[in-house]
């Protein structure tokens, strides 16, 4: 869903940032991006140090305190700031551990889809001809299905679980990277510096990876950020549908699915996991906007 603007921008996404300081200059001009970065770093910190930050274990059940409301509501207590769920587990602790899963999912999915997408896109864009047609036809096929539906069926085939959900999401995400890389490679390939290296005798692999690829990075980075947040959303959606991480894993989407039956009785078990997803995704998207501003020379102008 996020590719729209970016594919349109690829034709101009060639010039690399001339330095880190320039990058930071443009990035930090976008206040939202800085806030996003800050929030993201906080989430990252919490995720990495979850065992030290979380007040309780995410799986320990307190059978005396089922569905305890959050502290600011009547009946809440400081021991469980965000309350407890149906089997007496501390919601805050589960959310903190859940951050690990979400960031991990985002990282794995982006790595998998970027690596495979870029490789395939490079091949398609560099060699053109039949290889290109064949690859793009396959991408068309994948894109002909709504991504979530394809992921859902894929997970049903592979068996429900976090790992399979990540594989499925990577697969449905990867055509965006293929298209993006291919388009960028095609524009770069005809530029003087590439033609020059070719004349100078650079090999195919060298041309592909060392000459062309670095110059296509800007749009890829922006797209990767967006894919990161999309992956978190998709994994949560799969968890919500019962096809992602399986209970009792404290994955946010799975927590929401478990909480659904308490929708009328305990608003907090439904509200907080979703809020956690929203904040994380929003922070990453804010960063993504900032990255685009900093990396995309066309938008720098305006």
């Amino acid at each position, binding site marked *: 869903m996020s590719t729209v603007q970016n594919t349109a921008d690829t034709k101009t996404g060639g010039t690399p940032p001339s330095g880190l300081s320039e990058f930071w200059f443009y990035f930090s001009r976008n206040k939202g991006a800085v806030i996003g970065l800050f929030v993201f770093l906080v989430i990252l910190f919490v995720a990495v140090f979850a065992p030290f930050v979380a007040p309780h274990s995410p799986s320990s059940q307190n059978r005396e305190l089922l569905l305890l409301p959050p502290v600011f509501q009547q009946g809440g207590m400081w021991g469980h700031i965000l309350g407890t769920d*149906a089997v007496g587990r501390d919601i805050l602790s589960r959310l903190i551990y859940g951050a690990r899963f979400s960031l991990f999912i985002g990282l794995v999915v982006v790595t998998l889809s970027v690596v495979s997408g870029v490789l395939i896109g490079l091949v398609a864009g560099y060699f053109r001809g039949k290889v290109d047609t064949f690859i793009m036809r396959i991408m068309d096929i994948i894109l002909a299905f709504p991504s979530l539906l394809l992921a859902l069926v894929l997970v049903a085939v592979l*068996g429900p679980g976090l790992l399979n959900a990540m594989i499925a999401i990577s697969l449905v995400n990867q055509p965006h990277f293929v298209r993006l890389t291919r388009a960028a490679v095609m524009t770069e390939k005809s530029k003087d510096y590439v033609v020059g290296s070719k004349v100078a005798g650079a090999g195919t692999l060298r041309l592909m990876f060392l000459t062309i690829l670095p110059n296509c990075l800007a749009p890829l980075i922006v797209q990767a950020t967006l894919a990161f947040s999309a992956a978190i959303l998709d994994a949560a959606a799969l968890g919500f549908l019962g096809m992602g991480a399986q209970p009792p894993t404290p994955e946010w989407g799975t927590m929401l699915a478990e909480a*659904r*039956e*308490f*929708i*009328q*009785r305990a608003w907090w078990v439904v509200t907080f996991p979703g809020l956690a997803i929203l904040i994380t995704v929003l922070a990453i998207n804010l960063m993504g906007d900032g990255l685009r501003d900093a990396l995309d020379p066309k938008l720098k102008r305006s």
Partner: protein
Amino acid sequence: MKKLTTLLAATALASLMGTAAWSKTFVYCSEASPEGFDPGLYTGGQTFDAAAHTVYNRLVEFKRGTTEIEPALAESWDISADGKEYTFKLRKGVKFQTTEYFTPSRELNADDVIFSFERQYKEDNAWNKYVPGASWEYFSGMGLPDVIDKIEKIDDLTVKITLKRPEAPLLANLGMPFISIVSKEYADKLQADGKMELMNQQPLGTGPFTFVAYQPDAAIRYKANPDYWGGKQAIDDLVFAITTDAAVRAQKLKAGECHLMSYPNAADVAELKADPNLNISEQAGLNVAYLAYNTLVAPFDKVEVRKALNMAVNKQAIVDAVFQGAATVAKNPIPPTMWSYNDAVEDDKYDPEAAKKMLEDAGVSGLKMKIWAMPVARPYMLNARRAAELMQADLAKIGVEVEIVSYEWAEYLKLSSDKDRDGAVMLGWTGDNGDPDNFLDTLLGCDAVGGNNRAQWCDKEFDDLMTKAKETADVAERTKLYEEAQVIFKREAPWNTIDHSLAVVPMSKKVSGFVQSPLGDFVFEGVDIAE
């Protein structure tokens, strides 16, 4: 006024809103869409509620609230001395329903009954394959093709079924939804018009309610059948509001959008009980969940080992954790609502110390075993993994190391039947017809080894009792045989019987006349609502 309501109800297009002031509409929040409307084709309970118990009748039926057989379309029957000939006398003057499409020209007769049977097993019958993939799953699942020799018309109102061998549970089978009696005249008309598929979309029978319309995944509508042989119902319209989410069903019930709901979340029951506008009906379900050892594999071939393992598991803790109280601990393989349930049987007592000693005495130490946990929630076991984890912890206390395994559901069902299966398998059963044979022989008989008998347990003494009971028509005598069988079962312990879950039906206080069925059916014949 009476005339007016009938008139309005008869127009299928009548707005329920418009007629609300005059007609009584009963709304039932059901849990799933029916698979279709021909009960012979399907196995889902929601399908039987929507078709068999509203539109249709059977030769014999279960007395409301019990698993006893009573006359329905058959007024009476005779069983020959050798138990192989059943002669049914049909009720006189039973009218089929009238719809816009079809007006019956005659009353129920033997042709309808014969047609209803033959279409399910005679491959040359034009209706045997009238929908793609029609497999008449229950008819063959209950073994009827192997039991029924022929079915004949004696006269217009007399039908004789001849069996290949005596089969006492036959009557109970004939009370089951799948063998509902359909109209041959209606079938002929559909066939002549080239609309055979309508048999499965617009059912037409002799039952208390006439089918009006089905809005897929949303609602099913019926009106009271004015010609019903049991008398016209007190309510005028019946609506099934299909609501797959249990929490939403509960909310609709509380908001007064429906009068009765099926299958509440275990977590919601307490709150529903507290609601002053609601009544709750509870009954032990006709089911059992069990852990079946593989009695062909050492050391589980030893009774003492199986007994010791049974004694090490705290079943009450499982019932509390998984069902939050909405289940009872099981001691027999059949549920307490079933006739011949032997309450004198004593369960293996939870006693880890004694269990440990027993295991040592049997010469078993350092035992490692697998426990299979189903990947899906079933009515008799809502969360198999959680139950398995509790067993794992209990067994660890007597030095048994448990590995929990699971497979995809279809695989699980298949692999668990293997004779050389490694490990004890958790599974269960929901009764079909209330006959003890349907539990005991189906699940524990020697014929079922390698199939439904997941314990692979073949005990001569037990099996002889089963065969004898099948050949005996007298219920009192059969009861004795089954009671004895339960004693043998407990002594030999091929299973650890885990629980019988409780069926809970919340309904509005305005509802009267609803009787919970031990078979888990939702039957709305005889219900009424107060204004």
